[in-house]
């Protein structure tokens, strides 16, 4: 098995930005759904 050694690692900022790119809309969707779900307990 090859153990690929990272020679030029992916930039951490790129990683953070990419995760934010998917997590921000997801969080918005979850928040919208939570607001709707609160009607059950209102």
């Amino acid at each position, binding site marked *: *098995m*090859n*153990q*690929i*050694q*990272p*020679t*030029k*690692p*992916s930039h951490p900022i*790129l*990683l953070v930005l*990419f*995760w934010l*790119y*998917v997590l921000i*809309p*997801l969080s*918005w*969707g*979850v928040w*919208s*759904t*939570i607001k*709707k*779900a*609160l*009607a*059950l*307990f*209102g």
Partner: protein
Amino acid sequence: MSGFFSKQHSVAQPGYSRWLVPPAALSVHLCIGQAYAFSVFNDPLTRVIGVGSSASDDWKLTTLGWIFSLAIVFLGLSAAFGGKWLEKVGPRLTMFVAACCFGGGFLISALGVHLHEIWLIYLGYGVIGGIGLGLGYVSPVSTLIKWFPDRRGMATGMAIMGFGGGAMIGAPLSVLLMDHFKSAESVGVVQTFLVMGGLYFCSMMIGALTIRIPPPNWQPVGWTPPVVQNKMITDKHVHIDQALKTPQFYLLWLVLCLNVTAGIGVLGQASVMIQEMFKGLVTPASAAGFVGLLSLFNMGGRFFWSSASDFLGRKNTYFIFFVVGAGLYATIPSMGMAGNMALFVLLYALIMSMYGGGFSTIPAYLADIFGTRFVGGIHGRLLTAWSTAGVLGPVLVNYIREYQIGQGVAKADAYNVTMYIMAGLLVVGFIANLSIRPVHEKHHMKHGDFDELDGIYPADDAEH
């Protein structure tokens, strides 16, 4: 195929972080998950001509219902028939085609709404969009499993969680856009479709451009495969066509189908069920809140259960779904009769978490049983179980309910038999899961078998 979208060009260079793959997969799944929010267009689409209210020439809800049904049918068909192609060309080209189909489907549908030609929407969102859904759904699965041999369940759970989350983004986004574009002359659906088609195409393309497949024989730095092998996790590979000749494929098909049938059946009835069981206590608005809560548990369960399966084992995880699930389904009627709404909501939410978990744990289960080489394609073929359950679940629930009411059973009590039948389905699922054994070695691939489909992974990988 050569060029930028070829499999060869999407092999990761040294240093590429595998943690870029889950957001690449999410970029696609968060888009295609919009399909479950398509119903927000139903009401505006019945007022395209009349705008304020339906005109006589406007489309009826029954006509519009076929759009979603067609999309789900073509999701299943494209996942089943496109799986082998996906393994041949790799995830990048598959995601690109999925982006063109899903984004393009919206554009064709916008034209359909503009011209008021329903067949264009059937073709656009239903057929072409549905193909995009299926290809997009299966495209990152095998890549994730190859990048995360140490956490197969968690990796696929992240992507498939995105499919659940996509509806949560798609619904408020659609409403926001339609509110922005609507006027005295238009319900704003045409412009909304155009914007969403463009947005989804771009987002899916970001996923396609970012995703990479690991080099041959890659494994995470510092990780070595466990010395004591779990008998239920093979290090061999079964060819996509050979998998169909094994009993394990059909048992897993049954496991997925029964888990989804039970879940999808009661999910579609959740709003009506809580209102009828707790008459006077639950308004339509709070029932919609209940459905929202269920979708949160559905999404959370996708990540939680598939991640937990990395520790519990795939077979044990499905045992939990079937044993605990059957118990919960059987308990719900008594919660309704006792008037205990809090417990009713909690049990229902747990059921939905396991319904979602069933979807997200199945790819890792397939990889354990059939190996990682063709898991994307095999997963695609197994998704016909989802399509089947999508028809079976609601039909079963509606038919049983109508029959009960026809027999004079009170509406609030009409769900009891349904829940017991769903519990029975899960018992059958338990037996199917119990019967799953490792695949016989005669089905395993031998040296040279890879040449047909692959130029990346060497034949030696077949027997290591």
